[in-house]
């Protein structure tokens, strides 16, 4: 599904290398988790995959079902099936949440040559999915993420993911800022989308989320590289012992 090979990335503005050769393969139907110390490059990886400005790829490649992601505009990547749940969802005053989501859903459909969703159908679908995530109608009417609490913003990300039905979901610390109940809701939202054809890359600091979203593979990222890959037990090891042991082991 998602294939990253030898990816090296520096900042456009300054001579700072952030990703120093990332190799990662996420298969369809699988959940991969990435853990790693603050500043190790996890969010940078998610931004580079989704096409944010300010980064320069100096080496390597990233493909989605064989298509070169790095060559596409951000909206083309989204239409190709990539979704990023932001670590810090952006507030957009003046743009209604509903308008935004309907524009996004139909833009992707159009780009894929599919028929647009009617206003009525859209309303029906979004109401049902919002209810599952305990997002009330009032929040849908408000401008995108404006005045949402931290947890509400994260739930809104999952709602967007559920509406857009991407092939490859990258979740950047979607668990941070969530209370215990909200974490369960979000995990249920993610699990509901787990299908044969869909891949997940879940960036997190805590084992807790992985109790609910059981990963198939866990990667440890440090200083711009994947330094260790293992099964779910690797997350437990981090939870219990921190990164010191793992990092000294690979050094």
């Amino acid at each position, binding site marked *: 599904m998602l294939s990253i090979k030898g990816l090296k990335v520096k900042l456009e503005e300054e001579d700072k290398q952030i990703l120093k050769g990332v190799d990662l393969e996420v298969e369809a139907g699988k959940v991969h988790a990435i853990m790693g110390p603050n500043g190790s490059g996890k969010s940078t990886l998610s931004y580079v995959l989704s096409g944010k400005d300010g980064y320069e790829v100096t080496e390597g490649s990233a493909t989605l079902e064989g298509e070169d992601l790095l060559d596409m505009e951000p*909206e083309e990547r989204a239409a190709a099936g990539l979704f990023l749940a932001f670590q810090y969802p952006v507030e957009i005053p003046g743009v209604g949440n509903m308008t935004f989501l309907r524009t996004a859903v139909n833009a*992707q459909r159009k780009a894929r040559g599919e028929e647009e969703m009617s206003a009525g159908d859209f309303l029906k679908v979004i109401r049902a999915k919002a209810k599952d995530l305990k997002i009330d109608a009032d929040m849908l009417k408000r401008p*995108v993420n404006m005045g949402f609490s931290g947890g509400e913003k994260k739930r809104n990300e999952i709602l967007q993911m559920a509406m857009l039905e991407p092939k490859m979901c990258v979740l950047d610390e979607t668990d941070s800022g969530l209370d215990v109940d909200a974490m369960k809701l979000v995990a249920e939202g993610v699990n509901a989308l787990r299908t044969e054809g869909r891949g997940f890359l879940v960036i997190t600091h805590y084992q807790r989320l992985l109790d609910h979203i059981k990963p198939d593979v866990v990667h440890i990222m440090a200083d711009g590289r994947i330094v260790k890959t293992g099964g779910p037990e690797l997350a437990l090891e981090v939870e219990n012992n921190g990164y010191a042991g793992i990092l000294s082991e690979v050094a």
Partner: protein
Amino acid sequence: MTAMQATTSETDDLIAQHRIEAEGWSRTAREDALARATAMGLPQRRDEYWKYTRPDSLTAAEPVAAALLKSDEAPLFDGMDRLKLVFVDGVFDADASDDLSQEGLEIELLSRAEGDLHWARDLYGTLEARGQKPVERPLAAVNTAFAKEGVLIRVTGKVSRPVNLIYRRNSDSSDVMLHYCVKVEKDAEVTVLENGPAAARLNTVMEVDVADHGHFHHVRAQGRDHERRAATHVFARLGEESFFKSFTVTVNGALTRNECVIELTGDDANAHVAGACVGDGDFHHDDTVFITHDAVNCESRQVFKKVLRNGAVGVFQGKILVKDGAQKTDGYQISQSLLLDEDSQFLAKPELEIYADDVACSHGSTSGAIDEDALFYLRARGVEKHVATDLLTLAFLAEAVEEIAAEELRDAINDRLASWLERHRG
């Protein structure tokens, strides 16, 4: 009077170009206005409130030619139930207009009004003259002196059907002055709409006298006429618990100077002035607003948003004057520009002058670009870059458009802005 005209006629300018032709009820007001204009002199670049906008093309004897724009877009308020008054290059077109009778309104053309229209005689030139202090507005006095056409409207009841002043032009060099007097009597209510390309060079004055508990709504579209130049003035005086709302949308136009001068003279009165403009390239748009609070517990709002690209220039000069004794004044003013590139420019001069101690006044002015994080967020969800930019631009303008009370009008204006954005992409 004739002596004064003789001296100015030696210079080749706007004043020298005209003679007072009207006889009858407005004659004295016109002669007074000419005396005012002559004493003030026409606007000069060195004048304090003309620093950012060159007055030359507005004060010259002849207008700069302005090519006619062909557009297949339906005129803005088409389809709405309204009383239509059509002016073609400043000349009333009776065939295209509705019958000038409507319950709750006395309505007459300036060129036809004869006899004892005492309310009009009392109003014509009066608010314009009051509005000359402390800041001079010579172009308005020139209009009072020489305007050949216009409309006199007296509102005696709650009128739900708007009066629509519709402009058309067939000449690339028409030079038009129109003068409107609107007297809203106690408890009465009216909506006045203006739209369409009026002239190569347009000078309008609208004097609005709102009595106690009266409501006046004004929605104006200065649109789709790239090369035209316009200087407009709205002068308003507001009685107790009255409501005044004026909104202007401007899409393109080589030069626009919109002045709005409002006096809140009755307690608990409300004045809202707002504008949304979008300009691409050869576009200079100037909003100059002066609001005087001279009564207790009044509210005023100024909300102006400008979207500028390809060297377009936006100007905002807005003042709130709170007189001694005008306690509990609530004054709000915001002017913002969205610069879609680095060639465009926004010049703002917000002013507060307060002589009462128990008031709440705020003003803010900002200039910025499209928010890159918001743009990326939208694109990451699949929204194409130009669509995302348009969404964010409309969101920026929304605060001004929301000042329009009627939803139908708000939607019509939003559609206009959206289609402009679509036509003027990157």
